[in-house]
C-alpha cells in the first residue's frame, strides 16, 4: 500500500498533468478555493452536478440531432448550456468543443454538428474519468491520514 507521501506526490503529478494537457483550467482551481472545513465536499458536489447535467445534455443533443427536421436553435441552446457548465467547472476541452459546435449550429451544418457531438461526448468522458480518478486519489490520501496538497 502506497505511503501518504507517495500518494500525495501522485496527486500533485496527476493534477499538474491535467492542467498541462488542458483538461482543466484555472476555473477548477477557483472551485477548490471555495472548499474548506465547513464545505469539505464542495468540489465533488459541483462536479457531480456537472456530470448529471452533462449526461442529460448529451442525450438531449443526440435526440435533437436525430430529428427529421433538426431544430438548430434547440441544439444550440443545449450546447450553450453545456459550454456554460463545463466552463464553470474548468473542463476546458469540453468548453472548446462546444464553441465549435455552436458555430456548426449557426451554420445549420448537420455533419459538423454530429461530429462535434461525438467529440464533445469523447472529451466529456475523458474529463469525467480523470476527475473521478482524482477524487479517488484524494480519498486515498485522506483515508491514509494525509491531507490534500494545495495546488498553485
Amino acid at each position, binding site marked *: 500500500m502506497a505511503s501518504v507521501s507517495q500518494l500525495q506526490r501522485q496527486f500533485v503529478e496527476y493534477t499538474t498533468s491535467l492542467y498541462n494537457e488542458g483538461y482543466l483550467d484555472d476555473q477548477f482551481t477557483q472551485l477548490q478555493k471555495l472548499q474548506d472545513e465547513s464545505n469539505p465536499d464542495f468540489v465533488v458536489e459541483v462536479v457531480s452536478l456537472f456530470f448529471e*447535467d452533462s449526461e442529460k445534455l448529451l442525450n438531449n443533443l443526440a*435526440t435533437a440531432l436525430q430529428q427529421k427536421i433538426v431544430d438548430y436553435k434547440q441544439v444550440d441552446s443545449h450546447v450553450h448550456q453545456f459550454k456554460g457548465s463545463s466552463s464553470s467547472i474548468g473542463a476546458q476541452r469540453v468548453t472548446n468543443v462546444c464553441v465549435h459546435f455552436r458555430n456548426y449550429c449557426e451554420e445549420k451544418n448537420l455533419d459538423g454538428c454530429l461530429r462535434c457531438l461525438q467529440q464533445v461526448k469523447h472529451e466529456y468522458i475523458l474529463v469525467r474519468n480523470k476527475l473521478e480518478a482524482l477524487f479517488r486519489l484524494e480519498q486515498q490520501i485522506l483515508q491514509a491520514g494525509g491531507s490534500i496538497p494545495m495546488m498553485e
Partner: protein
Amino acid sequence: MATKNPTFSRPWRSGTDHFPDVHVLAVDDSIIDRKVIERLLKITSCKVTAVESGSRALQYLGLDQEKSSPDFVDVDLIITDYCMPGMTGYELLKKIKGSANFREVPVVIMSSENVVARIDRCLEEGAEDFIVKPVKLSDVKRLKDYMFGPATTIHEDNNKFNNINKQDKGSFNKRKLQQMSEISPSNSPSPSPPTTSPSPPTSASPSPPTSASPSPPRVSCLSSPSPPTSASTSPPRVSCLSSPSPLSPSASPSTPPFSPSQLDSPTMRLKVTNSDEA
C-alpha cells in the same frame, strides 16, 4: 414615502469588519452556476437566496402580483444570468428597475458572452455591473468591495481565508498589470456614464445608518427541483445566436481577454472589450 438609501452608501462597519446583512438574490437557470455563485457569495459573507429563473425572482420579490406592497423583502443586491429561458436577465433587470420597491437595488448581470452591445444595453438599462462568466472569487470580492465598502471575508482569524486573500491579491496584481498594458492609450473618457458610478473602495462615506432593524439570518435556496429536461418536453430555450458574437473568449485556455475585476468604471470596461475583440 421613505426612500430606501442607495445601497452603496451603507456605512462601513469598521468595528466588526464583516457584513452579516448583505442579502443577495442570485438568479441563474444553471444548477451548477447557482451552486457556485451561492458559495462565492457566502464565502464573502453574504446571505444568499438563489432562484432558477426571472419569474421565480419576481415571485420572490413580490413583483409578479398586481398588489402593490408585498411583505417587504430586503434585498441588497441582485445578481442574474443574462441568458435564461423564459425571461432573460435583461428583461428581469427592466422589471426591477421599473418597480417602485426595488429600482434602487443594484443589479449585476452575468454572462458567458462578452458582447459589447449586450453590456451596453444592460448598463443603459441601469445595471450596476456586468461580469463575464465563469465567475471568480475575485469578481465577487471586487463587487462587494465597491458596493458595500471594503470587504473582508468572514472568519478573519481563519487562516485559510487570509491565504485566499493573499492568493487573490497576488493574482489580482498580476492580471492587473497584464490588463493595464493591453489597454489602448488612446482611450478617451466615455461621453456619459450610464449609471451612477460606484465610488472607489476607499471612500467610506459616513452616511446615516440605514434602517436599524436587525435582520435575522435569511439563508434560503429557492431552487426548486425542476423536472428533468428531455428533448421532447424541454421548454423553448433562449437562443443566443441572435447577436453576432465573436468566438467566446471563455473558450481560450487562459482567462478571458479582460476581466472586469481590474477596472474601475463600467465604461472603462467597455473600452477594453472593444480593443480586445479585434
